[in-house]
């Protein structure tokens, strides 16, 4: 793996924000702050497909048998007032383009209320709560290291820079087994959302993009050719390009603490004709997401998510429909958690440039065993396989089919 340290001014700003935030943490009463962290160190045994991070067409994060830092994050929750808290997650990644920065930084307003239907809101830079997979601190998955195709994409390319409002009704206070929440959000930024799944296709990893991050992909000739599409071989996914507001709306429904459903409709409302000086385009991306979790008993749960949508850039220079789903079974026995997930993902194009081939599809199988040695230490091993096809590999004289596999051995320390 190539370790890059191209610190720019945006990284410097992120570091300064990081210092400011944790200084605030030290200055407010100690009891009112919650600071925690997670560090994961990995040993990887991988296949030879060059990772998208290194401008290859492989869909995994690692492409070298090596040892390194999988995750290093600090998360904090600072109470600024009785009803207002500040949530932040700061990361260090040795790979990718932005090494230090935030994946989330938001204020949450959740007033106490005697009413059966309550209100809450948050504003800042945060994830829409589409996923029932990423429920550990720092939006990590407690189940597998290599995340589902859907949430790998959410982690690398999607973030809400805006305001989210919810009305919700906890069932138990109504003497009902059913709880619900309705969500509406408006946001800026995230106009290039869709770039990665259109050209590279879905990937499978746990590298979350940071606040000003850049994600590389292969230099497909039709993409980078200045006489053709003329787009760089990377995307900076969180840019605001067209001054339009995006929105999403969601519904959460849960039965006791046993079953959960989440439905979201998302539309970034980007203008697909907008392009900036880097030649990054607006991608009009819309999708439906449906998540489901059911606890079969205290130790075993099923988790699933389905996403279907489309994205368009330019005058239909690229237009794709995308669909992905996964089904995961996770079982915990005392200190051990074993999780098995099957992923399916596909991208189908219908655009004006047949030579810019955007069809891709694949499936993945991920099996992880994680063992809690104590409250702080965890050991885990994961075996991942995927078979994926991307038509545009032909542009790079590569076989369009890839069989990828990766074994990860991970030691985790949390506090």
């Amino acid at each position, binding site marked *: 793996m190539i370790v890059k340290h191209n610190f720019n001014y945006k990284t410097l700003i992120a570091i300064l924000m990081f210092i400011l935030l944790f200084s605030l943490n030290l200055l407010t009463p100690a009891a009112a702050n*919650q600071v925690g962290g997670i560090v994961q160190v990995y040993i990887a045994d991988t296949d030879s497909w060059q990772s998208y991070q290194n401008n290859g067409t492989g869909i995994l994060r690692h492409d070298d048998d090596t040892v390194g830092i999988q995750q290093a994050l600090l998360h904090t929750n600072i109470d600024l007032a009785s009803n207002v808290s500040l949530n932040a997650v700061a990361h260090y990644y040795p790979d990718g383009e932005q090494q230090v920065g935030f994946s989330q930084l938001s204020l949450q307003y959740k007033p106490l209320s005697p009413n059966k239907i309550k209100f809450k809101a948050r504003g800042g830079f945060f994830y829409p709560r589409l996923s029932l997979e*990423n429920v*550990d601190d720092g939006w990590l998955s407690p189940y597998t290291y290599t995340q589902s195709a859907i949430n790998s994409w959410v982690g690398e390319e999607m973030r809400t820079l805006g305001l989210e409002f919810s009305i919700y009704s906890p*069932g138990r206070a109504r003497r009902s087994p059913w709880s619900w929440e309705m969500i509406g959000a408006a946001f800026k930024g995230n106009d290039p959302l869709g770039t990665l799944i259109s050209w590279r296709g879905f990937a499978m990893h746990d590298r979350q993009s940071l606040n000003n991050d850049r994600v590389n992909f292969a230099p497909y000739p039709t993409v980078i050719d200045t006489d053709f599409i003329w787009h760089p071989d990377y995307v900076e996914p969180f840019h605001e390009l067209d001054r339009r507001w995006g929105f999403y709306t969601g519904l959460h429904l849960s039965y*006791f603490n046993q079953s959960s459903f989440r439905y979201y409709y998302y539309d970034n409302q980007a203008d697909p004709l907008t392009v900036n000086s880097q030649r990054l385009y607006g991608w009009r991306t819309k999708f439906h997401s449906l998540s489901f979790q059911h606890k079969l008993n205290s130790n075993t749960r099923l988790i699933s998510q389905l996403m279907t949508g489309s994205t368009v850039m330019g005058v239909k220079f690229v237009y794709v429909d995308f669909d992905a789903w996964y089904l995961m079974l996770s079982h915990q026995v005392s200190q051990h958690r074993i999780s098995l997930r099957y992923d399916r993902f596909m991208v189908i194009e219908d655009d004006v440039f047949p030579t810019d081939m955007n069809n891709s599809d694949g499936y993945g199988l991920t099996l992880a065993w994680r063992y809690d040695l104590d409250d702080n230490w965890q050991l885990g091993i994961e075996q991942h396989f995927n078979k994926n096809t991307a038509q545009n590999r032909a542009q790079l004289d590569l076989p369009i089919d890839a069989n990828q596999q990766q074994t990860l051995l991970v030691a985790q320390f949390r506090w």
Partner: protein
Amino acid sequence: MKCIYKIFWFSSAFICFNALAIPVTVDVFSNTDKPVFQTVVYLEPEGDVEITQEHQDIAVMDQVDRQFMPHILPVQKGNKVVFPNSDSIKHHVYSFSPAKQFELKLYKDSDAAPLPFENQGEVELGCNVHDWMLAYIWVVDTPFFAKTDQSGKVTIDVPKGHYSVKIWHPRIQDDLDALTQKVSIEAPTSMSFKLQEKLLQDLSFYEQRADKLTDY
């Protein structure tokens, strides 16, 4: 400190106030003759009872595995309740009940001062971080109270005298005043309550499937 609290909590059910205490055994049955677990049973003295000692304990409402522990806590009016946090995450306990309104942020390893409960009646507790958490403190104006066990039975030792025997449970729909029984305790006594109305839905399943992997 937590151990001491627990000792207090357990001891409060067995405190003997008078050397001549007489056991009163109470059974509580639903309208379908099922025992009603965790019903608060309390005996209010009618004036001729000499109370030589008041409860001075601090009762405990702990937060364990993102649940209140216990779900129902009876305390005597004027006594205090302490809210420790046995979890490693933040809780934000609150009540809007007329008998006691408060909010308390409980951080990891927090050591919040005990709160006095000065008014009789129901205090419904919630947590503003974990919306499924719910518990009740039932404040009684007598030192003679306890909760029924799994078989719906409880035994309370009281001095000789006249009492109003009352019960309370959040699932009971019967008129509580109509359920009150007046008794004269001269010797060991057994009595029972039979509810007429159907119990409200049992929601304890919320506690059986709660875990820390819930949201972000």
